[in-house]
């Protein structure tokens, strides 16, 4: 695994992604998702909303890192909040 030049932050990042995917699988097994319409303009399943949340989180991080002086932790916090809002009401 040395050639992959792991660092602690990236390892944590991928571990969290893997945990989210496992968690979503478990959740799906316990109670299967129902496609529904929230504040988003399209009907989405739980997985769709997770994907939208993660993708918008990536873009939010890029904007914060590239074009503002804000800390990256601000982007992370905002992304988590946004993801929760999206999962519940999106």
């Amino acid at each position, binding site marked *: 695994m040395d050639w992959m*030049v792991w*660092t602690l932050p990236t390892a944590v990042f991928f571990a969290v992604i893997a945990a989210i995917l496992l968690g979503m699988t478990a959740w799906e097994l316990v109670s299967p998702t129902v496609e529904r319409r929230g504040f988003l303009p399209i009907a989405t399943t739980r997985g769709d909303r997770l994907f939208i949340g993660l993708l918008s989180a990536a873009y939010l991080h890029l904007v914060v890192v590239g074009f503002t002086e804000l800390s990256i932790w601000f982007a992370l916090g905002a992304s988590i909040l946004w993801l929760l809002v999206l999962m519940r009401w999106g």
Partner: protein
Amino acid sequence: MNKVYNNRAWFLILPMLLLVAFSAIIPLMTVVNYSVQDVFDANTRFFTGTEWFEVMLNDSALQAALLRQFAFSFTILAIEVPLGIGIALLMPKRGWQASAVLILITLPLLIPWNVVGSIWQLFTRGDIGLMGVGIRELGYPYNITRNASDAWATIILMDVWHWTPLIALLCYSGLRSIPDAYYQAARIDRASKWAVFRYIQLPKLTNVLVIGVLLRFMHSFMIYAEPFVLTGGGPGSSTTFLSQSLTTMAIGQQDLGPSAAFSLIYFLIILLVCWVFYTAIMNSQKDDTSQGGA
């Protein structure tokens, strides 16, 4: 209605998942690791955090390349999709003519990218190329190594020549799969040719067009060999697209950290655009069917 879900079929994709893990996911994870470090060799590396992303996002040459890339991709889509549909509609439907036309149309698709670049490089040369000499004889000082708009027009023409057949082939197969009953009903209704196209052929083509547009967008967004051989990104940097900037950075200058950060941004853009395309087209289709069923 109580639907029984049996998800065990998912186990069948495990071999594919393993393959993709080794060919895509693990390399991509490595790219993420590289993007937050300055790696010199296996033992000498420094954590840089978000620095590379900051540098890459504010690099004006890359921003210009990104704009050029979008301009290029949307231009060729705007030309190739209608043209491909048109060609598919005109192609003979049966008999030996159908086979002959299919083969003729497919020929450009069989040529490797860098060979396409070389063909067009020779074709457009002002001293020996058929097209280059021809246009000059008509009185226009055509020169792709000096004039940026000539270079642009040629690259777009080359891409249209190389890839419109793909759209045409997809549409042709889509058109062949429409049952005759639809056309018979249209004839009974005395539908005009345009109405047949708008309400029968085009809706039935949606699925193949989704695939066609997605493939062409991704291909053209990652275009490398053809413009590299034809113009080398010039004149100046007027036809330097994203993948060429990336290659120069990663291979030419060995700046692995910045180019890793840059490829992740590149990847995110492709991911977003493809997702938007896919969702938009799939949803418009869903609305159509729900209206049709009501």
